[in-house]
């Protein structure tokens, strides 16, 4: 109660400051323009244009248009079932696995339409790595987990694989904890370690973009902290898109934040703006905890 009351006046005072009118009349087409002009020149990694998705006839995404900046961390927030994970899965075409999934609109990555029929989905997924909500290490050794992607790409030399595994595990801040037991089963690791192992596995194929689907939702606070630090470190090398329902986390790790609700992109702006000066009433309600 008290925290809410403390938080609200702040936000309200922020809101009244600029001349933007907080309303729900924001259209998706406006959102692209809503990106501050100073960063327009920055490279766009992923762009979705009027992206709609139906699961078995039930709409999951409704005409989402947004562009994700290269080399930054973008967070998707929103209540459960708002379509943020579905949107994420459009970026590496993981929704293709579901037969009942219909998609319209376009998604471009580095300017290329990834839903063109002649696109090599396998290569796309290599370039766009993904980490899931629950750690999903393969029932293999730690080494084999990380080496799985490179092996699929035909890397056979043991020396090369060892290099990649060490590089990836170091990259995922896990090397020091597991270097002595690479041949042990990955299932023996704690869930925090497993999640970092999965991140190591994802970066072992040297992707350009990392999609993190609520990577900390099943982790304890200390593991969460480690993964967040890791995201911070990885930022310099990868474009990261993270789905989270933890708003503090979004505020801590991301540069841009998109708020989604009921399959629509409600508001998309730099994290600072979203959390201190949201333009939309829904965003404000969600962030202040009145909702969801």
């Amino acid at each position, binding site marked *: 109660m008290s925290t809410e009351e403390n938080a609200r006046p702040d936000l309200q005072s922020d809101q009244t400051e600029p001349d933007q009118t907080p309303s729900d009349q924001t259209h998706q087409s406006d959102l692209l323009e809503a990106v501050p002009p100073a960063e327009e020149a920055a490279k766009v990694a992923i762009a979705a244009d009027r992206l709609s998705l139906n699961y078995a006839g039930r709409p999951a995404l409704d005409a989402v248009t947004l562009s994700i900046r290269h080399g930054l961390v973008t967070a998707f927030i929103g209540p459960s079932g708002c379509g943020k994970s579905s949107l994420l899965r459009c970026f*590496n075409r*993981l929704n293709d*696995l579901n*037969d009942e999934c219909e998609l319209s609109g376009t998604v471009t990555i580095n300017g290329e339409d990834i839903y063109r029929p002649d696109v090599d989905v*396998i*290569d796309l*997924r*290599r370039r766009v*790595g*993904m980490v*899931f*909500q*629950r750690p*999903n*290490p*393969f*029932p293999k050794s730690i080494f084999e987990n990380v080496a*799985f*992607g490179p092996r*699929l*790409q035909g890397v056979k030399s043991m020396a090369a694989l060892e290099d990649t595994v060490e590089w990836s595990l170091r990259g995922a801040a896990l090397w020091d904890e597991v270097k002595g037991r690479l041949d042990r*089963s990955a*299932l*023996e690791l704690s869930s925090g370690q497993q999640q970092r192992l*999965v991140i190591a*596995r*994802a970066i072992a*194929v040297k992707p350009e973009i990392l999609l993190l689907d609520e990577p900390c939702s099943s982790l304890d606070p200390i593991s969460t902290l480690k993964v967040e630090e890791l995201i911070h470190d990885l930022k310099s090398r990868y474009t990261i898109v993270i789905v989270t329902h933890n708003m503090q986390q979004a505020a801590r790790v991301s540069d841009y934040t998109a708020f989604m609700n009921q399959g629509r992109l409600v508001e998309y702006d730099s994290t600072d703006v979203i959390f201190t000066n949201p333009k939309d009433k829904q965003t404000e309600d969600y962030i202040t905890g009145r909702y969801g």
Partner: protein
Amino acid sequence: MPGLKVSRRRFTPKSWISGSWISLSSKLATGTVIAIIVAVLLILLSGAVSYFWPRPIYEFWVERSGEAAVPVHGIIAGKENAADGSARLLIRSVTAAGDDPATPGTDRLPAADYVWLPETAVVQRSRPHHLTAMETRDGRWHWGYVVQLQVDGEILAYTGSLIDFSNQLLAADCAAQQHMINALRPARVADACSDAEFIDWRLLFEDAERRQVTVAGADILQLMQPNGAGLLDRIASFATHLVTFRSPNRYAPHHGQDIVAAIYGTVLMVLVMSLVVSPLGGLAAVYLHEYAGRGWLATVLRVAVNNLAGVPSIIYGVFGLGFFIHAVGGRFDQWFFADKLPVPTFGTGGLLWAAMTLALLTLPVVIVATEEALARIPRSLKEGGYALGATQSEAVRYLLWPLALPGLLTGMILAVARAAGEVAPLMLLGVVKQASSLPIDGNFPFLHLERKFMHLGYYLYDLAFRNTNLKEGLGLLFAVALLLVVVVLVLNLSAVFLRNRLYDRYRKLMS
């Protein structure tokens, strides 16, 4: 803790019975199942043990109407109480005026047979220590006394005890007489002795009616004095007979080799079947789960697979006969074994076709078990593979297949249990009473899958019908049945062991 109520619920017979009706009835059901299993095993076990346990030989003095009492030697095979209160004993003995009376002047005694003795006619019964049971190579049993022993034509001092005699020989360090000593040891089976070791020895044997015959050592299979044997000797005798699968009490219409051949046949057939059914069932399950989708074709396939499990096994036998033996085997013969025709090679029943047919029979079980295992694999695992750029086939091969293996092995356990006990289809597919050669031997190519084979289940079936004196024959039946149970158990346990090792590896993931 004063505030906390102390539970009075402890395990007592009463607490076990109390509780809700569902808990009670489930306990009763479980108890019944366990009782049935235990009863089956106990009956088999007691029958088998009695078959191999050396029984005492009796000397009965029997008084027939008005005549003087005469001795009868034999084993008590049963007892029957008549309605009027009188009892009679079923004796296995040589005294019966059977169809094969002793011919004076020859060295043959009459064959043993069953005879009923009214208990009132038996004036005296005893178990003399030196009463001897002798089984000869022609399958006859005799009960009587050894009167004299001769080695190389020389008559030896004989006290009446075979043990004394063999010790005497051992003390004299007669290495060359090993065979004889073996034969003389109570309950020792001399079957395995090679003829090279054989020296000329014979004994003078006298039966209850004082007929004497000289029997050559080479003709003797077993020579025992069970009455004088102590418990340890009896146990040793039991063990020896168990290993050779030969009864110390009665002629068995079989040889130890038959049992060995039947075990070989059963195990080999099950192994070949496993080799066929595991890849077939596993891959079919992968197809159904991963590729078939939810269309009408997949539905038809699933229904077909589930219904196949309910088809009576004899129908598989007919199918195997028509398809494998006549169609496929006949074609094989025309293509590859034309020089041997009209003698069929693969165009007749044999181990391979029996194993293939049983593989079809057990296929549904394997498919269903594997598919269930595949369905239990978390979706996220496959997605993890796809997210790394795995193709569907790579995800199946490297991620799903290893995890489906324990399920496949569960299916194999059920399949093995079913196949090892199946008899009906085998009768159409090349199982025989007596195989002239094993399907596996030292001759190239070592594994002869086209050969006819023996099978424990069929052997059991055959024994049951061959045995007219069921009462005593049950012993052998039980022994073979127990052996079949043991073979199935060993096959099953090895699959369980394999599966548990795999489960250990993946347990954390599945939980």
